[in-house]
């Protein structure tokens, strides 16, 4: 409206000097590699030497490749389990931290600590715990399931899941807690008067009020877990066999060392489509639901 009537407001040239150099740099170092990746996914480049364009061959191969299927199955299973566990546990923990507890700040600070530590080192520490501490306890207590290093078995992914949840809870709990703190105490008092307590109060009153925080956590969790890399490199390197090879680990390992530069570029493109799709879908759906509840 304004634009139509008033004269077109001019932008001071200096603003262009502030932005254009960064657009150019970002284009060179981020956008060009992104398009290069898409381009190479239509070639047979090994990462060196000559190459030819091959059309959709890499993508056709992608859907026929059992190794790829296994990697995607593992990554999606892992991401789903981690997202559900992290969000359920974080929400419970945040409710606990939101109660009238003593030493609140200290306890909160301890639970946030894992966020500060590098995932790689955490992975190494838990490697040792899974390999050298838990089996000894398991043998002492006579529990079969605990007496071997879980990372060497078919259940290795559970070890990775544990470490991922251990670390990710720190951030998610903090967000839920800040959400819970926005809920006015008067709301609870009103709910108490109406006879809504305990679980009912949580589902009917608390949860809808912190829904935006739930949105943030869900989106960030799924995205992060689908790209799991550090903890897997630290703990299993993708093994035993290839049972814990996530999409990112596969891109790294086969893309750089396996002579599959082009094929893994196709893999990266598909990972991008999935991540972008999920992010947009989640934002849309969850926002709609929030709006409905409000």
């Amino acid at each position, binding site marked *: 409206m304004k634009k139509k009537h008033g004269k077109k407001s001019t*932008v001071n040239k*200096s*603003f262009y000097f*502030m*932005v254009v150099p*960064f657009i150019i*740099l*970002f284009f060179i*170092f*981020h956008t060009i*590699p*992104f398009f*290069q*990746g898409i381009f*190479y996914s239509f070639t047979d480049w090994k*990462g060196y030497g000559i190459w030819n364009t091959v059309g959709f061959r890499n993508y056709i191969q992608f859907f026929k490749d059992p190794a790829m299927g296994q990697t995607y199955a593992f990554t999606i299973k892992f991401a789903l389990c981690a997202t559900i566990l992290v969000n359920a546990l974080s929400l419970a923990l945040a409710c*606990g*931290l939101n*109660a009238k*507890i*003593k*030493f609140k*700040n200290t*306890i909160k*600070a*301890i639970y946030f*600590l894992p966020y*500060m*530590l*590098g*995932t790689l*080192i955490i992975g*190494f*520490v*838990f490697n*040792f*715990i899974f390999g050298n*501490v838990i089996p000894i306890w398991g043998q002492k207590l006579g529990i079969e399931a605990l007496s071997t290093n879980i990372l060497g078995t078919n259940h290795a992914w559970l070890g990775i899941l544990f470490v991922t949840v*251990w670390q990710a809870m720190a*951030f998610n709990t*903090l*967000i839920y807690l800040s959400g819970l703190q926005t809920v006015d105490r008067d709301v609870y008092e009103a709910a108490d008067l109406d006879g809504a307590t305990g679980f009912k109060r949580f589902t009917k009153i608390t949860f809808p009020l912190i829904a935006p*925080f739930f949105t*943030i956590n869900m989106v960030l969790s799924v995205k992060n877990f689908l*790209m799991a*890399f550090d903890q897997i*490199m630290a703990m299993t390197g993708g093994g035993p066999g290839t049972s814990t090879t996530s999409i*990112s680990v596969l*891109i*790294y390992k086969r893309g*750089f060392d396996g002579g599959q530069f082009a094929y893994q*570029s196709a893999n*990266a*493109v598909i*990972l*991008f489509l999935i*991540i*972008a799709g999920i*992010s*947009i879908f989640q934002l849309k759906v969850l926002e709609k639901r929030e709006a409905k509840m409000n």
Partner: protein
Amino acid sequence: MGKSKCKVKEKYNWPMTILLLVLAVVFILGPLYIAVLIAVKDPSEMANVLSFPKKLRLQNFVDAWVMTDYPRKFMNTLFITVINLVFTILSNSMVAYAITRNKDKSKFFNFAYYYFVSAMFIPFNVIMLPLVKQASAFHMDNIFGITFLYIIFGLPMNIFLYTGFVKSIPPVLDEAAYIDGATPFQTFYKIIFPLMKPMSATVAILSFMWTWNDFSMPLVLLSEEKYQTLQLAQYVFKGQFNTEYNLAFASYVLVLIPILLVYIFCQKWIIAGVTNGAVKA
């Protein structure tokens, strides 16, 4: 006095306090305690893994320090982290300011906004393969190159964080400065930038955490030993540590100490900053 206070205030929920404390000690502090314990033990005492050491063996730290060339790795990491932090705050805030102020007037700035923000959907792993080829062609596979890339790659997220904040600063301030003859650059650095301090703190903390703990970017970009960061060095030395757990854990503890110190002293700030960033996002 204590009694009267208790009466006025709501009672503490002690069962919850104890439950949360026990869980925190067992699950969070427990693993870290084990890490420190192994780091100060003598290899001969490893038969009983969790026994308290008869004497502290601090030689583990000296050995790890020398073996991994800790000072160099520390300085590399510190350089990347500090330079990235300073330049990110100075430059990304400016870009966000220019974009936000002109987004509604000009198609170009509106495009710039969506260009940067939509790049948030592209994870690093997706551009990793071509980026490494490009970086080595441009001779950017070193400390300076990676620092530069961190500054550039932080743009989408930081612009996203800053724009909301810039909107809350009244444009009247800009106009007043403009009438007084200030250029946009002067207006920004003298008037707007100081006002952006709360969001800059958040951006600073997030950038710090990202670069200090990052593993994947150094892994693919920094192949030369002299450029390794602390995180990358731990990965590279994993094979050499082999089963010398005491040495390995001494090294891990040395890597964790700086960040723990930062956390202990800036804990409130960090928690507030991270919350602020996530809630804005």
